[in-house]
């Protein structure tokens, strides 16, 4: 995906976040969202390996071997950050104390299901904390490319093993912002220079604009 598309997705997701939100950012595209948050919005970013108060990626001078994100990469923490063990980390996640979880997906369907941890026979990264995050977080936003090499990812029904059922609140792709609903995906917003026809052509599920 081009830098422009990733930029559009990350900045659009950032608009959904409110001052004081406790937010968990998945690896890859979701991890960029923090860079686009408005200056009057202060987030408390959780890293599920045991931190509330993630700041950003560490440069070489800042890198501390005792401080990494859930992908094992060196990061920095904000003043007032705190550390805890994995049981506490998932008490935060599973107990409904995370306001927004932002993560990628391989497929999302109109029943708000998502798949992102297993392609049988091919790829088995495992669910990590994703199953806990999508079930436990109050709002789940999927930030992903609209298609996988041209193959639609907004589906009537997921074909891959599910991460959770009925948990997705919003999907943001380079084509726009979509909300799963049993009759399809409601189009809340289209990206600049994207028409409904273009977005529909790249989707398997029906897209519709609410009257």
């Amino acid at each position, binding site marked *: 995906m081009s830098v422009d598309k990733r930029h559009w997705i990350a900045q659009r997701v950032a608009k959904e976040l409110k001052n004081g939100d406790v937010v968990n950012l998945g690896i890859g595209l979701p991890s960029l969202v923090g860079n686009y948050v408005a200056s009057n919005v202060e987030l408390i970013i959780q*890293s*599920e*390996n*045991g*931190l509330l108060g993630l700041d950003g990626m560490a440069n070489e001078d800042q890198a*501390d*071997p*005792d*401080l*990494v994100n*859930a*992908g*094992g990469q060196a990061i920095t*923490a904000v003043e007032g950050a705190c*550390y*805890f*063990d*994995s*049981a506490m*980390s*998932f008490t935060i*996640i*599973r107990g409904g104390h995370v306001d927004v979880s932002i993560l990628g997906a391989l497929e999302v369907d109109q029943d708000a299901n998502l798949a992102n*941890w*297993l392609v049988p*026979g091919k*790829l*088995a*990264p*495992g*669910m*990590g*904390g*994703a*199953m*806990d995050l999508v*079930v*436990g977080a109050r709002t789940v936003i999927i930030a992903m490319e609209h298609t996988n090499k041209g193959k639609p990812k907004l589906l009537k029904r997921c074909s891959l*093993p*599910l*991460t*959770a*059922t009925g948990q997705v609140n919003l999907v943001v792709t380079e084509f726009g912002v979509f909300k799963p609903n049993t009759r399809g995906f409601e189009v809340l917003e289209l990206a600049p220079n994207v028409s409904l026809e273009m977005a529909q052509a790249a989707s398997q599920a029906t897209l519709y604009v609410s009257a």
Partner: protein
Amino acid sequence: MKGILDKQQVADLFIDQHSVMVGGFMANGAPELLIDILLDSKLRDLHLISTDTAMPDKGSGRLITAKRIKRLTASHIGLNPNTGKQMFAEELDVELVPQGSLAERIRCGGAGLGGVLTPTGLGTLAAENKRVIEVEGQQFLLELPLRADIALIKASKADERGNLFYAKTTRNFNPLMATAATLVIAQVDEIVAKGQLEAESIATPGIFVDYLYCPAHQNQKE
């Protein structure tokens, strides 16, 4: 805490165990020196419990790479290609568990609990062969306790009682695993005198730790 061991004394403890918990998260806070000793031991065909298999040359991933593991319980294996290869070749039996459920299963193992009920995994493959229990109209999966013969953990500092302090994100699964194994060995960077750790900063009470391993401490004494 029973004592501070040197490398040979740690090696002598690895005789007939079948399951091992290894702390660390993507090898951050992993007991690399204890893994070295385990790799030198005769232990084979182990059941490894670790939240991930890190990378091929790091943390618990090294036990996979050296083919010392027959059965794995983990939440994420995506950054160690050897794990997937051995799994698809059916050399390694892998149980993937949601990370929060894994943490709670180990906590149950250490806390004398019969299991934990969670909605995580309902309606997915993670629910296979698990009991669904309804409580006040809501469905939950029953996740069972996990224990191991050995826990290899890593802390930043210990005091002479075996109380442990973990720096920043190195804590992760280490304090949980310290509660849930028959033999608990902690690799530490430094051992300080009693009273030198701030009591409120201790994340693992020394009663959970059987032995400390600290090469820097050995050197200090010599």
